[in-house]
C-alpha cells in the first residue's frame, strides 16, 4: 500500500468530509439531545426494539431461483435446510419482467437465457410447482414480482396457490417487491408500463392487502436498486423517502385505506449494504430517524409500530469482483457486518460468484454461513446498537440524514420522484457517480484488491459461473402449450376480459387478477392487455 499524504481531504461515499477523529463536540446539537434515547424510542435511529437481536434475530433471506420451477423449489429447500429463515422466489427476467410468455419472439431469440435468473412461471400451475412443500404459513415468503408490472401477477399467483392449499390469506405472511427503483431506474425493460399506471398498480396492491392480507408487506421500496445503479448513500436515502411519499400521497388522495395502516405497509424497505461499512451502518440508523420524522411531520403519524422502519438489506452485488472471487467471501462478511451494526431486520449476502453468475449451491451456502457465523459466534447479537454513542457514528448519522433531506428536496423541486424517473434526472445523477467511481479506480485513487492492485491470484480453486439447467425453455414451452390446451377456455377468456375492463377503469385490478389466476390465464396474455391499455414507458436513458 502506498503511503498516503495526511493533509489531503478525505470524504465519505456521500461526499461528507471526514475528520481523522471525532469528539463529542462534533455531534450536531440537535442530534446530541436525541441520540441518547433507547432503541425502540423516538427518534428510533438506534433500532427497532430495546432487546434487538436477542428477541428477534435478523432474517436470513437470500435471493434464489433459476431454471424450471422444480429446480427453484429444490434450491429453496436446500437453503431452508441450511438455515435460511425466509425464502425468495425469483422469476425468470426475460419472461417475468416483460410479461411475455416464452413463445414471444424476443424471448425465442434468446431462448438459452431463459431460466438463468429465475424460474419460468407463466401460469398458476408453474407457481404451484415452485411452491410445492414450502412452508408458506410458518416462514416468510417472497413471491417475486420485483418489477412493477409483474407484481400483480406474481402476487396473485402465489396467493392463489396458497389458498388452493388451504392456507388462510388473512394470516399469510410474506412480501413481493414492486420496486420503482429497479423497474424505472436500475434495470429497465424493453417494454413496460409507464410510471403512472405503475403507481396505480402499487396503490391497488396496498389496498387489496389492507382488505384481505393484513400480514403481507404489499410493496417494498428498494434503495438497493438505486444505490447499485450509482446513487450515493445519502442519495439512496433521499430517493427512498421521495418514493415513499409518492405512495402515501396517492393512498391519501384515494382515501380508501387508513393512512397509518398504509404507512405501516410502506414501512418495510430494503437498502444496499456496501463495503464502506461504517457509513452504511450510519445509513440504516439515519433511515429510521428520517422515516419517523417524515411520518410525524408530513402525515402526523406517531404510532411507534408504524414509525419504526423495518429494513431488509442486501450486500452490494456490484462490489463483488470478477477477479479472485474468493475474496468476495470477506467482502460479503464485512458488508453484512455493516448491515448488522445498522440493526437491519433481514439480510441477504451476495454470492462470492456474483460477478460471474447467479449463485452456485456452494456460494449460496456460504452466504447463509456468513450470517450464521455472525449470529452464533461473534456475540454481535447480544447488545442492541453497539455503535450507538460513538462520536463519529452519531455525527455521521446526523450528517447523512441532513444531506439525504437535501436530496429529497432536490427531487421535490424537480417535480417529485416520478418526474425524476420520467425525465431521466435520476439516471443522470447515477451515471455521473458510476463514471466517477470508475475513474477513481482507473487512476488508482480507489484500490480494489485483485482488480487494480495485487492482481496475482494463486488460488487453487477455479470458480466458473453457475449456469443452471439447460431445459428451462423447452419445458416452459411444453407447459405453456399444455395450459393453453387443457384449461377451461371460456373461463380464461372471460377473466382476461374482466381484467382488461378493470385496467381501463379505475377499479382495483387485484380482484380480477385473482380471478385470472384461478382461470389459468397466462403471463403473456396479461402483458398483452397491459401493452394495449397502458402503452410503453418512454425510457429516458440510452443504453
Amino acid at each position, binding site marked *: 500500500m502506498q503511503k498516503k499524504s495526511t493533509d489531503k481531504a478525505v470524504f465519505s461515499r456521500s461526499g461528507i468530509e471526514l475528520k481523522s477523529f471525532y469528539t463529542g463536540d462534533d455531534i450536531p446539537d440537535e442530534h446530541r439531545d436525541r441520540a441518547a434515547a433507547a432503541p425502540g424510542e423516538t427518534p428510533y435511529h438506534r433500532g427497532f426494539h430495546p432487546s434487538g437481536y436477542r428477541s428477534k434475530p435478523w432474517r436470513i433471506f437470500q435471493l434464489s431461483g433459476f431454471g424450471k420451477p422444480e429446480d427453484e423449489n429444490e434450491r429453496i429447500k436446500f437453503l431452508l435446510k441450511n438455515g435460511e429463515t425466509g425464502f425468495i422466489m425469483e422469476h425468470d427476467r426475460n419472461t417475468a419482467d416483460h410479461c411475455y410468455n416464452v413463445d414471444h419472439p424476443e424471448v425465442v*431469440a434468446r431462448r438459452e437465457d431463459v431460466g438463468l435468473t429465475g424460474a419460468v412461471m407463466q401460469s398458476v400451475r408453474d407457481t404451484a410447482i415452485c411452491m410445492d412443500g414450502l412452508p408458506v404459513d410458518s416462514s416468510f415468503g417472497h413471491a417475486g414480482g420485483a418489477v412493477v408490472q409483474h407484481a400483480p401477477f406474481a402476487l396473485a399467483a402465489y396467493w392463489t396457490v396458497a389458498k388452493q392449499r388451504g392456507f388462510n390469506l388473512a394470516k399469510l405472511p410474506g412480501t413481493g417487491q414492486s420496486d420503482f427503483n429497479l423497474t424505472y431506474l436500475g434495470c429497465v425493460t*424493453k417494454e413496460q408500463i409507464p410510471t403512472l399506471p405503475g403507481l396505480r398498480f402499487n396503490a391497488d396492491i396496498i389496498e387489496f392487502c389492507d382488505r384481505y392480507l393484513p400480514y403481507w408487506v404489499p410493496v417494498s421500496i428498494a434503495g438497493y436498486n438505486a444505490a447499485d445503479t450509482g446513487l450515493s448513500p445519502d442519495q439512496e436515502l433521499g430517493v427512498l423517502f421521495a418514493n415513499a411519499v409518492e405512495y402515501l400521497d396517492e393512498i391519501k388522495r384515494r382515501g380508501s385505506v387508513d393512512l397509518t395502516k398504509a404507512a405501516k405497509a410502506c414501512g418495510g424497505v430494503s437498502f444496499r449494504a456496501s463495503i464502506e461499512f461504517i457509513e452504511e451502518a450510519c445509513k440504516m440508523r439515519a433511515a429510521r430517524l428520517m422515516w419517523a420524522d417524515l411520518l410525524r411531520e408530513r402525515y402526523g403519524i406517531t404510532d411507534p409500530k408504524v414509525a419504526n422502519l423495518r429494513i431488509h438489506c442486501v450486500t452490494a452485488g456490484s462490489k463483488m*469482483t470478477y477477479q479472485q472471487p474468493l475474496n468476495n467471501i470477506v467482502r460479503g462478511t464485512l458488508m453484512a457486518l455493516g448491515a448488522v451494526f445498522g440493526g437491519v431486520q433481514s439480510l441477504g449476502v451476495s454470492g462470492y460468484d456474483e460477478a460471474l453468475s447467479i449463485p452456485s449451491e456452494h456460494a449460496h451456502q456460504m452466504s447463509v454461513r456468513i450470517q450464521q457465523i455472525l449470529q452464533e459466534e461473534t456475540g454481535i447479537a447480544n447488545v442492541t446498537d453497539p455503535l450507538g454513542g460513538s462520536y463519529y457514528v452519531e455525527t455521521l448519522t446526523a450528517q447523512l440524514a441532513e444531506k439525504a433531506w437535501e436530496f429529497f428536496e432536490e427531487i421535490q423541486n424537480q417535480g417529485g420522484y416520478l418526474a425524476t424517473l420520467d425525465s431521466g434526472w435520476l439516471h443522470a445523477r447515477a451515471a455521473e457517480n458510476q463514471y466517477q467511481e470508475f475513474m477513481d479506480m482507473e487512476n488508482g485513487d480507489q484500490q480494489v484488491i485483485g482488480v487494480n492492485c495485487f492482481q496475482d491470484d494463486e488460488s487453487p480453486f477455479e470458480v*466458473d459461473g453457475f449456469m443452471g439447467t439447460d431445459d428451462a425453455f423447452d419445458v416452459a414451452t411444453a407447459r405453456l402449450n399444455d395450459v393453453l390446451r387443457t384449461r377451461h377456455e371460456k373461463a380464461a377468456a372471460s377473466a382476461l376480459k374482466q381484467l382488461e375492463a378493470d385496467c381501463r377503469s379505475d377499479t382495483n385490478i387485484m380482484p380480477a387478477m385473482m380471478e385470472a389466476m384461478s382461470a389459468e390465464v397466462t403471463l403473456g396474455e396479461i402483458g398483452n392487455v397491459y401493452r394495449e391499455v397502458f402503452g410503453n414507458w418512454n425510457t429516458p436513458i440510452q*443504453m
Partner: protein
Amino acid sequence: MAKTGLDGHWRGPTIVARALRDAGFEVIMIGMANTDDIVTSAVDEDVDLVGLNVGGHIDVAIRAIESVQRARPELPIFAGGTITPRAAKQLEALGVEVYPPGSQLTDIVDAAKRLTDKK
C-alpha cells in the same frame, strides 16, 4: 453497442460508451437487441466495430457474433459483461476480444482504437 440479453442493467454499456465518446468515437447504442437487430444495425450504419454487452447465456452472444461475421466477415467485435472465464475462451476462439468486469476503461478504449485502425 448492443445488449444481447433482455436484462436492462445499463451501468456497463453506458460507462463504456461514455469513455469511447470522450475518446472521439461516434457510438450508436441500440440497447437490448436480438441477433437480427444487431446484424441490421451493423450493416445499415456501416459501423467500424461492434461492442456487445453480454448478460446471459453465451450461446445467445455466439449466435449474434456468428451472424454478424457472416454478414460482414471483416468487422471486428469486442464484448464485455458477466462472461465467465470458460465462456470468454469460446468468444476468443471466434476472434472476439473479451473485457470482463473489472477491466480498465483505458484498455477498452485502446482496444477500440486498435481494432478500428486495423482495417
